[in-house]
């Protein structure tokens, strides 16, 4: 294909122009950090995001992200990873919209992992749309402007007289029109216009943004052609399955491979290099069985005899640890937010209501377990893997192999789910090391047992909230202690306190209009690999806070929804910068993304209205409500539950309202909210990873069950608030946190039984 907008090297003139407009982020030392640059046209968005602060920031270069072939095919680069959110479709949609391209003639290609080239590629933190909506639009507008200029030149008219319209440039006065394909070569010779001067569309002109199209992979997915991590096959490729130390921090002592080598199809058994804990995302090491197919490798692995030295975490026992955490939140601890005098207000209160909550470790269990394929030579490495951090994977693989990043190519496949697990590229490094060792292409497949035994787990957490109520029924004091091992322990050995990122996930930023608020964070040492799981610490924090609101309502004989609104208080911007030093606002500036109590109220009121809050229900049914701001979005959920005589629960209906500002693909927002309800249901009903002697006790979907279709809500209604030209905010994660407290509040309404410890297990029996 001929690139209409060739890479700069082909023309010195263009090179100069485009170089000026490639906006690099913080990692390019001394260069301009500009995330979503101001556009001059009145209609252009004028907010800033934190995109420029991400590693390698933002690259705005239409030559890189879009090309047009002579037949008119528009090819748009997706530089974020597709794991089910629809991002591989929605970001290209935004570009195509400004380009005025016909979606039927758009092709999407996946970028390899290369952040100096494409800008930050981390697909996590529910950030892709909020950081890339405007840059994608700007690149589309730049390309459109170049096409308009090329047409105007060829017709010898002023550029203002022509206009892009559905894959053509039209000169209305003369009725002339010419297709994008025919213009591509001429447009390619023009300089890229100044990004800041581009006119972006008014909302009313959008053809795709806010309306939506089916995901680009839909046909391939339904016909089995879609390619995931384990679907890459190279000539002479070897199949590897590993056994890893069962305790984090443990290491291999010896192994006996005799029986393994006797398994038909097994070719080799080799030691796999490991790193001491904690070492970021480096592999755990162990022993690899190499075979002609994965089935043989698994059978061979089962026949291995291995001796381990379990190391310092050999005593990790999650029951004992739970008692430790619960104890720690019953005592004063380091203060992370202090307003008024919560201790004094609690003493003076007419009533003090105390709630203690516990949430266990979780495993991600994306349907696709980790898998990666690597082909490594002495001087280069090529990887095919389902990774959420293609750029980080490239750097980590390069560093591990001692190669320059330029010698490492990361091909990003589709991800069969990620949920944060696939931000950690240990499996890609494993494949790279084995390929180098065996001097052959290698595919590493994790079994489900491997996935559950060697995850980067969701943290375990004890939360204790005391609320002081004065005689009038007003809540005057709020003291919340949260103890949970931090994911920083994966990066810095010995890290013990929640990082400012975790603290800011619905804990220190509790948005209530309460005069005396104190938040405390006791130490909590990690004894396993802690990672981030879809919505991260928002899950325990929202569970505690939103359960407590309903507990207060019950104690005061109030309606839980009214109590919730009263505690949020009047519509206002919460001055969090005053309350919390160095507050982390999901990496976004507070002026563009404030904590807006009005928006929080609005989603709560809206969902209550849509769910017909207060409606008559059959016996043993109940409604529960919860609202939470996370990933700078506002989500409220109402769950209707039915609890049978034996304590079995079913969910007849879920209503969720989301305010995520300006959005691209509403249909994918709905599917994310539907899925968040299912994930929430899984963690409430049965989600629990436990440890004994440092080993994970669960191993597959029989003892780590997740929700199935016969448990799923009968109806899930999703209500999307109008974008109103607000900056876009997160969608992938924020649906999860409010679900668990809404469900448990509903269970209380149905049965009078308050669930303070997840999962429910047999607590209702």
């Amino acid at each position, binding site marked *: 294909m001929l690139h209409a907008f060739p890479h700069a090297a082909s023309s010195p003139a263009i090179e100069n122009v485009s170089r000026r407009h490639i906006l690099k982020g913080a990692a390019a030392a001394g260069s301009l950090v500009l995330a979503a640059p101001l556009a001059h046209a009145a209609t252009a968005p004028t907010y800033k995001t934190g995109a420029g602060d991400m590693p390698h920031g933002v690259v705005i270069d239409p030559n890189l992200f879009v090309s047009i072939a002579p037949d008119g095919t528009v090819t748009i680069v997706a530089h974020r990873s597709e794991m089910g959110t629809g991002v591989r479709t929605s970001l290209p949609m935004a570009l195509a919209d400004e380009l005025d391209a016909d979606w039927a003639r758009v092709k999407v290609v996946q970028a390899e992992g290369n952040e100096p080239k494409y800008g930050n590629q981390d697909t996590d933190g529910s950030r892709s749309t909020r950081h890339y909506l405007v840059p994608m639009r700007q690149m589309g507008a730049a390309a459109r402007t170049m096409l308009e200029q090329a047409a105007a030149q060829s017709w010898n008219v002023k550029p203002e007289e022509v206009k892009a319209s559905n894959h053509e440039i039209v000169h209305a006065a003369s009725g002339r029109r010419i297709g994008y394909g025919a213009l591509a070569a001429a447009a390619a010779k023009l300089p890229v216009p100044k990004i800041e001067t581009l006119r972006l569309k008014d909302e009313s002109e959008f053809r795709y943004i806010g309306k939506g199209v089916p995901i680009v992979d839909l046909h391939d*997915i339904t016909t*089995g052609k879609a390619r995931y991590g384990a*679907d890459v096959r190279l000539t002479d490729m070897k199949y590897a399955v590993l056994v890893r130390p069962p305790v984090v921090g443990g290491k291999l002592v010896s192994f006996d491979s005799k029986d393994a080598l006797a398994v038909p199809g097994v070719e080799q058994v080799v030691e796999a290099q490991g790193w001491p804990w904690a070492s970021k995302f480096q592999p755990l090491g162990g022993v690899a069985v190499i075979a002609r*197919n994965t089935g*043989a490798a*698994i*059978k061979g692995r089962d026949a291995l005899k291995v001796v381990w030295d379990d190391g310092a975490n050999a005593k990790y026992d999650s029951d004992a640890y739970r008692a430790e955490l619960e104890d720690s939140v019953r005592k004063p601890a380091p203060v992370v937010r202090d307003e008024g005098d919560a201790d004094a207000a609690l003493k003076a209160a007419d009533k003090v209501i105390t709630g203690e909550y516990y949430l266990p470790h979780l495993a991600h269990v994306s349907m696709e377990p980790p898998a990666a394929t690597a082909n490594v030579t002495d001087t280069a490495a090529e990887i095919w893997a389902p990774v959420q951090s293609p750029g980080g994977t490239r750097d980590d693989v390069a560093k591990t192999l001692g190669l320059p990043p330029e010698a490492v190519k990361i091909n990003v496949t589709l991800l069969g*789910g990620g949920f944060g697990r696939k931000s950690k590229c240990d499996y890609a490094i494993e494949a790279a090391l084995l390929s180098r060792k065996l001097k052959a292409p290698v595919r590493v497949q994790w079994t*489900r047992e491997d996935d559950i035994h060697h995850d980067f787990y969701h943290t375990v957490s004890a939360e204790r909230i005391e609320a002081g109520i004065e005689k009038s029924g007003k809540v005057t004091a709020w003291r919340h202690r949260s103890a949970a091992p931090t994911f920083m322990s994966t990066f810095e050995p010995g890290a013990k306190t929640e990082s400012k990122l975790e603290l800011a996930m619905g804990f220190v930023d509790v948005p209530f209009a309460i005069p005396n608020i104190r938040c405390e964070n006791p130490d909590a040492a990690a004894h396993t690999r802690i990672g981030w799981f879809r919505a991260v610490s928002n899950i325990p924090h929202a569970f505690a806070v939103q359960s407590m609101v309903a507990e207060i309502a019950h104690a005061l004989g109030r309606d839980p929804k009214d109590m919730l609104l009263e505690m949020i208080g009047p519509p206002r911007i919460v001055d969090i910068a005053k309350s919390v030093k160095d507050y982390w606002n999901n990496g976004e500036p507070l002026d563009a993304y404030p904590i807006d109590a009005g928006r929080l109220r609005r989603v709560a009121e809206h969902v209550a209205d849509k769910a017909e809050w207060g409606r008559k229900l059959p016996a043993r049914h109940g409604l529960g409500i919860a609202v939470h701001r996370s990933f700078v979005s506002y989500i409220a959920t109402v769950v209707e539950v039915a609890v049978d005589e034996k304590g079995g629960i079913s969910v007849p209906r879920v209503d969720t309202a989301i305010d995520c500002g300006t959005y691209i693909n509403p249909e994918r927002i709905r599917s994310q909210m*539907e899925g968040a309800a299912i994930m929430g249901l899984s963690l409430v009903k049965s989600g629990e990873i436990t440890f004994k002697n440092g080993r994970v006790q669960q191993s597959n979907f029989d003892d780590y069950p997740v929700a199935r279709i016969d448990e799923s809500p009968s109806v899930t209604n999703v209500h999307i608030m109008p974008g109103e030209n607000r900056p876009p905010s997160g969608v992938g994660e924020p649906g999860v946190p409010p679900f668990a407290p809404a469900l448990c509040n509903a269970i209380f309404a149905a049965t009078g039984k308050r669930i303070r410890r997840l999962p429910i297990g047999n607590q209702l029996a």
Partner: protein
Amino acid sequence: MIKLTVNGENHQWDGDPSLPLLWYLRDESGLTGTKYGCGQALCGACTVHVGGQAVRSCITAMEDVADQKVVTIEGLHPSGEHPVQKAWRELQVPQCGYCQTGQIMQAAALLSDNPKPTDHQIREQMAGNICRCGCYNRIEAAIRLASTGV
């Protein structure tokens, strides 16, 4: 030597007769549309048809499919226009998509046995197929749609 047909083509396997069909399909034959999710018949990602019945290929040994007709997602319909596939697209069922070939094979077998399933039957028959992304409402709706003709 084990002989079988896969999507109408003759295949033979002279390796380990206990090898699960899943790995024969994926690694030995390159039919990667069939997915691995658990290896223990707990998730349905590996569902294929053997003699028209939905089976979990992860626990089905090669020796058990000798002389059988195996159909995978690649062979369900020559151009991907099986009513279940069409309904799946119509309702935009997939999120990450990884479980969906197994879901589609299970749903196709369900409808060929029982062309007009009740909602309860759909939930019962599909309960062996996990979707971690949580596409269940749409899966249910798509099977209803397929059962009424797309």
